[in-house]
């Protein structure tokens, strides 16, 4: 269903804000190549709450203008090489955050609120560099009590991978509720899944409990092993050897280009 992935990717336009999940939640690696082929650049990536391989590859492909994240890394395979190079060269802008601040920004959007307050952060350089955040005195405290306000994050498109969806577009996300949070906050949500099932996931209370309703889902496409080389909870483990291979190859821009060309050949 590569055609579907391409048409989904074509929804992404230059300058859009994309929400992408943490490596263990369900990364739609299957969408990475179609996004690169689609070529829309100057993207604003919001990592929920951290980024990895997909973020590194989109940066390596030159599509990223701004990264809002609590961290970018390849986990056991080490630092994210294209991200690190881009930081050093100053070719991307950074909005360094901390995990719960990303969650707070999405929660504000979910609630239709302009911001969410958050404890912590006072005195950090994370806060000092975030001109888009505000500090107020807690109006409920009798004495001065500074508290940080995180403005709502409204991504244009959320993209993730999940085990299954039904014919109505309901998506099974299990306990990975950050995927629902991304969808609630975003204008569009694109989902790749291992399989399409025939039963309606909302018809049964047991499956309904872990289901993101179609109300929030713009488009679904089947992409078996679509998180690879990442794993998918309850389905398959991470291919750490492949992450290592990437980490080693992508140390240079040339090595990155070779790796991606090799991937494209495999998929063709």
């Amino acid at each position, binding site marked *: 269903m590569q055609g579907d992935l391409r048409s989904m990717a074509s929804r992404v336009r230059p300058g859009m804000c994309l929400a992408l999940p*943490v*490596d*263990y*939640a369900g990364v739609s690696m299957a969408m990475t190549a179609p996004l690169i082929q689609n070529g829309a650049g100057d993207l604003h990536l919001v990592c*929920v*709450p*951290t980024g990895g391989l997909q973020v590194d590859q989109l940066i390596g492909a030159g599509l990223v203008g701004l990264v809002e*994240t*609590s*961290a*970018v*890394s390849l*986990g*056991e395979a080490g*630092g*994210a090489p294209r*991200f*690190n190079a881009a*930081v*050093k*060269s*100053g070719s991307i*802008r*950074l909005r*360094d*955050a*901390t*995990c*719960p*601040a990303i*969650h707070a920004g999405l*929660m504000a959007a979910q609630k239709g609120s302009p911001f969410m307050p*958050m*404890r*912590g*952060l*006072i*005195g*950090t*350089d*994370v*806060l000092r*560099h975030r001109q888009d955040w505000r500090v107020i005195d807690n109006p409920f405290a009798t*004495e*001065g*009590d*500074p*508290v940080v306000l995180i403005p709502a994050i409204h991504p244009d498109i959320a993209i993730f991978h999940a085990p299954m969806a039904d014919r109505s577009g309901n998506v099974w996300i299990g*306990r*990975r*509720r*950050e*995927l*629902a*949070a991304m969808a609630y906050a975003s204008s569009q949500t694109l989902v790749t899944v291992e399989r399409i099932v025939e039963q309606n996931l909302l018809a049964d209370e047991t499956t309904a409990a872990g289901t993101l309703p179609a109300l929030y889902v713009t488009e679904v496409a089947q992409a078996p092993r679509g998180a690879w080389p990442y794993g998918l*909870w*309850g389905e398959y483990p991470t291919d750490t050897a492949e992450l290592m291979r990437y980490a080693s190859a992508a140390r240079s821009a040339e090595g990155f280009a070779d790796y991606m060309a090799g991937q494209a050949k495999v998929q063709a």
Partner: protein
Amino acid sequence: MTLAPLPREILICTIARLLDGVRHVAVGASSPMPAAGAMLRRALDEGQAQVRLSILGSVAHNFFTNGSAELFDSAGQGRLDAFFLGGGQIDGQANVNLVGVGDYPQTSVRWPGSFGSAYLYFTVPRVILFREEHTPRVMVEKVDFISAPGISPPGVYRPGGPVALLTSKALFRFERDRPGFVLESLHPRHSLDELRAATGFAFAHDEDPPVTPAPDAATLALLRGRVLDELEETYPAFAADWRRELAAHSLA
């Protein structure tokens, strides 16, 4: 005859001691030693109230069902008693830098980022700084970027913060009111002179600091039996390496 404790075993036992009385501890996905320390704590407390261990990203050691925000929520609710924090740089005020070296944002060395530190350091009562590498480039006088500050001025909401710093060379406790680190003990085969040379910040210490206690035979047996077995499920590579080291030493 029991094999003498390995350096990593001393660290794990020290972590277990630091977790005494804790109800719920969370450790990062790639933190085998803190996880082993928590598992040892649990084994030592068999029959009593046991510590609950959450390993981030793990399916088996995951008590959470509300996505990746739940760890932070539970900390905000006061349900998370202990957490481990590393750091590319750690300074004498217990400030932690997980972002990079040099001038932000175009740092010359970039680390992954602050993760949840800028929140958990404020909200978790017992944060244990754990970094094996003890060199002047890690233990600096002043961090280049404060991901999370060791202390906060009066009036700032701060139920949590650092209590200890554990490295491959020594254990320090942190005094918030001074503020600064106090040397608690040196690990076997390390000297005060060596420690001073390896540490970029000043710290308080006895003239003749004690040696970090080694585990007794019963604890060691628990560690090399049940804990190592439990650990294997989540950290197979670390467990295999540990077993190799044990085998090599018993042959020597």
